[in-house]
């Protein structure tokens, strides 16, 4: 057993982290929220060039085969840097699509897809920016068309669209609904975890330098303990997320993805609450970039199934009840 990233996987994660740290992901997220997708698509291509999207595409369609561990490592970085766009949705689509051309496009970064899966995922994220809009209806995969303008999300970088089915498309899965739901939950858990880590790190930096009563507020135990609890929750959620990645495709795959999603959403949301509280009023502003992650953590809490939904899935898998 070696339940830790090997050197190649670590190098890959560092590569993704480096390329996102060097790009203006915050600026791209702000632009995305205004409907300007160009900087976001540039980030998208950079992720594709690093091989991220190929990790959900079978080799015969130009991918690297499904590699959940590497994907989780990359998605943690996507979450950490606040990358906008339907990354999780495109990966979930890749997991169930059977259309060779679309799969090849996803792998090389030329095609961004999005996917609705009502009632779990009722809206197609960023359907206006996506090259391929999909929806699972009646257990089958369909092309879909957005109906009307975006619904406003708390996270302006998440532009949500109602959509209706508009013709069939090949699926590689007998049950695209459960396969997409499971993979989307795992991917979303990793993204949330990365957002949570960023919220914690930013807040730790803040409390070391922000002074009140003549000392850094990080000296106060009330502050320290809240951060310690946030770290603990994120650490253990991280082990569940990687555990689910390793278990992917096995007999407990769906159960473990649900456990990971419930824990990671909760941990990231707790990190958001901690970050907001310990930053004080500045954290409550739109202008301060922390808001990008606070809002995202709240949105991801319920995206791809709320913690309650996933706890129910875990219990159903364990007891059949």
């Amino acid at each position, binding site marked *: 057993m070696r339940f830790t990233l090997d050197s190649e996987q670590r190098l890959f994660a560092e590569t993704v982290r480096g390329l996102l740290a060097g790009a203006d992901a915050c600026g791209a997220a702000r632009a995305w929220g205004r409907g300007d997708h160009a900087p976001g698509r540039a980030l998208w291509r950079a992720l594709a060039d690093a091989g991220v999207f190929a990790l959900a595409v079978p080799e015969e369609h130009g991918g690297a085969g499904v590699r959940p561990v590497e994907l989780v490592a990359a998605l943690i970085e996507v979450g950490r840097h606040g990358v906008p766009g339907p990354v999780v949705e495109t990966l979930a689509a890749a997991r169930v699509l059977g259309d060779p051309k679309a799969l090849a496009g996803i792998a090389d970064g030329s095609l961004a897809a999005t996917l609705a899966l009502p009632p779990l995922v009722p809206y197609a994220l960023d359907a206006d920016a996506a090259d391929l809009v999909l929806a699972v209806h009646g257990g089958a995969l369909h092309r879909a068309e957005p109906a009307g303008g975006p619904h406003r999300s708390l996270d302006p970088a998440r532009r949500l669209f109602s959509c209706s089915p508009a013709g069939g498309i090949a699926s590689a899965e007998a049950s695209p609904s459960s396969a997409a739901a499971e993979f989307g939950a795992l991917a979303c858990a990793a993204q949330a975890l990365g957002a949570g880590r960023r919220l914690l790190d930013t807040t730790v930096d803040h409390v070391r330098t922000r002074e009140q009563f003549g000392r850094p507020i990080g000296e106060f135990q009330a502050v320290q*303990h809240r951060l*310690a609890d946030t770290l603990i929750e994120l650490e253990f959620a991280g082990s569940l997320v990687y555990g689910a990645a390793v278990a992917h495709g096995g007999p407990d795959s769906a159960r473990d993805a649900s456990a990971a999603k419930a824990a990671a959403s909760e941990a990231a949301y707790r990190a958001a609450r901690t970050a907001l509280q310990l930053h004080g009023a500045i954290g409550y502003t739109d202008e301060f970039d922390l808001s990008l992650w606070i809002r995202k953590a709240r949105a991801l809490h319920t995206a791809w199934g709320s913690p309650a939904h996933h706890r129910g899935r875990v219990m159903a898998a*364990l007891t059949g009840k």
Partner: protein
Amino acid sequence: MDLDFTDAEQAFRAEVRAWLREHVPESPLPSLETEEGFAAHREWERELHSARLSAVSWPEEYGGRGATPLEWLVFEEEYHAAGGPGRVNQGGINLLAPALFAHGTAEQRARVLPPMAAGAEIWAQAWSEPGAGSDLAGIRSTASRTDGGWLLSGQKIWSSRGPFADRAFGVFRSSGERHRGLTYVMFPLDAEGVTVRPIGRLDGKPAFAELFFDGVFVPDADVIGEPGDGWRVAMSTAGNERGLTLRSPGRFTAAADRLVRLWAERGDPADTALRDRVADAWIRARAYRMHGYAVLSRMHDAGSEASMYKVFWSELDVALTETALDLLGPDGELDGPWLEDYVFALAGPIYAGTNEIQRNVVAERVLGLPRAGRGGR
């Protein structure tokens, strides 16, 4: 990255599982914290030892099997899944023995470890004092130099297993202040000058004791490490007390599986709030298990990270057993295994350094925050 076990590890698991299936008592032993239960658990330690399963990670010469950390984790998973009895000698096996391996002499190891593994000598710890709990460096009980050894005087408290154990270990002040000048010693609880006063825990069972020392002689041979270096010796094993070793993941995954079964039998599917608590307990137990695998895979000393595990498992233990009592409803207050586990769990956030102290450690040493004000400011 993988979660695969080698053939050897799987064979070890199978052997342990088969032995436990044959030997674990069908009905639970009487409570470990009673005289009758203590004796029954001591007997169980002997039986475990007969299969060389009482201290699997020790070298064979002391009664162990030289098991790897991962094999130890496997043993723990199987042990708790089989419903194995509480380990009456865990203070000795998990705290004293690591100190002996790290700082003891070959003579001490040869003399102390085999009877510990065999359950012939059961050990209690003697750390806390009335004025030194979370602030352990405030120890005032003394060890004064005498011919060929040391004389212990003073008082210890909250000595787990103290009422019925044979021997104990702890640190005493031989000079200096705070962390300096402490000496780590072993002594018999029936030595002349030792008075043991059992203390009833929350449910009245004598789970710990107050110890009084009136010139108790300890020979030099029973000092571990250098005199005056006891803090370092004790802290080198603090991670064992706080981390994976004392409360292994297997303990919680087994308890969570039992909780899920209890829910399947008695839970009201319409009560989703309670269902969610059961699910959370199971998820957190699994997280601890995964984290244990990650820690062993990284193969580095957990150090301050052990404080994270301690907060995590102790709060999980309370949440898990509380949930079981709520599931039992009006039967939850009745004597039974869940209530016994619940009362035991309630002590977890307090012993081995309170969770408040652990959070300080996490904040300062893992997150790198400035040291918190320690009063007087």
